[in-house]
């Protein structure tokens, strides 16, 4: 097995005329936390959906855990945990029923199921809310439940699309503690976020804008390269430069 959990070469996704992801090439090393940054509409979710097998890339190639994203998406699905940007568990099912359903779908045996459920409810701090309808949970709790469901089958790779959007600072801190704990256990994490303090704690950062990967490296490398003070400045500077470049191109044309 290679040392990369995710690789992709020239991965492209078009929706009609619109290019959502443009010839993206990136590598996510095994066991690392990879922060995927970029402004709204830059193509983060689309990239993630292609990697999960939810969308077929228009062109390009990629592998997830050694499996081809074009042809082996079912093998990939067995081994990854995914949390989508929008809450996508059953709101009319309780916390426990949601966990039970996904445990069944991932074919956990009865003993294993009981054990994993207890572990995850403990980890997510959902104890006491097992009988609550998922739809009636507040934002932060919904995200914890979604994470628990994504972790039931002990995936090797966890893909989280804005897991902390709309979550209060305390819960965000707890959430990221969990993410780091998981990484220590050897799970690879690909995560998108708009919070730079969170991105700061990642092992790797990829920066995407208008579907193009503009920069890649460790947080320190990026800050150093740009001569910035922090990641926030890096983000703003990258966006400014890219917009200036595009304006110049547009003017030249």
């Amino acid at each position, binding site marked *: 097995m290679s040392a990369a959990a995710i690789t992709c070469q020239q991965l492209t996704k078009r929706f009609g005329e619109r290019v959502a992801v443009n010839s993206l090439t990136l590598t996510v090393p095994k066991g690392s936390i990879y922060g995927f940054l970029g402004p709204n509409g830059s193509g983060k979710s689309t990239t993630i959906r292609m990697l999960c097998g939810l969308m077929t890339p228009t062109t390009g190639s990629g592998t997830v855990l050694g499996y081809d994203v074009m042809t082996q998406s*079912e093998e990939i699905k067995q081994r990854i945990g995914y949390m989508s940007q929008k809450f996508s568990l*059953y709101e009319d099912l309780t916390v426990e029923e949601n966990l039970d359903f996904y445990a*069944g779908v991932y074919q956990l045996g009865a003993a294993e199921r009981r054990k994993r459920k207890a572990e995850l409810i403990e980890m997510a701090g959902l104890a006491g809310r097992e009988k609550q309808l998922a739809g009636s949970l507040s934002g932060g709790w919904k995200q914890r439940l*979604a994470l628990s469901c994504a972790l039931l089958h002990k995936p090797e790779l966890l893909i989280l699309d804005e897991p902390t959007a709309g979550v209060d600072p305390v819960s965000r801190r707890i959430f990221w503690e969990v993410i780091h704990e998981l990484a220590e256990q050897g799970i690879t994490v690909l995560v998108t976020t708009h919070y730079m303090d969170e991105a700061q704690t990642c092992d790797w950062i990829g920066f995407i804008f208008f579907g193009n990967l503009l920069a890649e490296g460790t947080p320190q490398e990026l800050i150093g390269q740009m001569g910035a003070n922090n990641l926030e400045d890096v983000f703003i500077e990258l966006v400014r430069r890219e917009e200036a470049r595009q304006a110049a191109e547009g003017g030249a044309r």
Partner: protein
Amino acid sequence: MRRFVWGRYWSVVKKEVIQIKRDRPSLAIALVMPLMLLFLFGYAVNTDVNDIRMAVWNQSPSAASRELIDQFVHTKIFQVTASVGGYRELEAMLDDGTADVGLVIGPDYTRQKDRGESAHIQMLVNGSDPNIARTAVSNAQLIVQHQAISLQEKKLEKQGMGELTMPLELETRVLFNPNMESIVFNIPGLIGLIMQNVTMILTAFSLVREKERGTMEQLVVTPIRPLELMLGKITPYVGVGLFSFCLVLFVGTAWFGVPVKGSIGLLVALSVLFLVTTLLLGIFISTVAKTQLQAMQMAFALILPSVLLSGFMFPRDSMPVVIQWLGGLVPLTYFLEILRGIFLKGVGAEALWEEIVGMGAFSLVILAVAIGRFRKKIE
């Protein structure tokens, strides 16, 4: 990896059962709607014609002419609702619909009859409802012929011919539905139609709802297989549909008095096959539609032709061959044959094997198509 996993299927079944139980309004509709439709249509789709309203213009009042009018009334098919004094009045009543037919007895009727001359009577018929018009005309002819023959007999007897016997007599025996009541024919068909409509709509929403709510995105990244998902989704509804079917069956037999001549066990078993077929049809709609509204529209687009093509409304035998073939593509067609066969004729499985095979084949094809169409993607 590619194998059907019962555990995953069973998880879907359990999840669906919980969701159905929590969705009380939908469950109520699934259970109560068939009953309501049965009552509604049971009374509305009554094609028996009786009490045709008749206005009479009797220009020759006498015992003889009154006897003739009584003949009409005795059949129970006609009822005299008005006595008029002229064509204008009669036509006005036909125009505004207060009368269906008008009987005109000419001024010479009694005289002609007494003299043994040929007497003429006239009937005006509102032909806008062909069913009523046909019944009126054929029955009026029968009544008048009957009257004419008995007059002839009396005349010949008077001339000393003695007791007469008819040279030709037709004796008919109607099998299966001796009173030729349309309700006996309609109720089994109605049961089939209602079950089709209600169950198809139940599953037509199922996958679309997950797409609309976004839960499909999470489901699709799991290793679940389309077959497990679809069968898991229809299984609870087979139960709901079967319960509802038994309710409708009970009311159809107890309230409308339509007996089941054949085996109830066979009827229920074949209904399960039919329910599976229509539920799969609903799932198929669910794979095509993008929104619940679209699913609804598609379901109705299938229901309307099925009413016409299946032989529910009009006998299939009198349809052009091409239309009959099209009817063969509608599962309701087979089920109607089965229902009417078991209800009215009391036949067993051996007489229905063609329909059973047809319906089974249909359900397998539609399942294959639905699975082929379903992509574990969210585009």
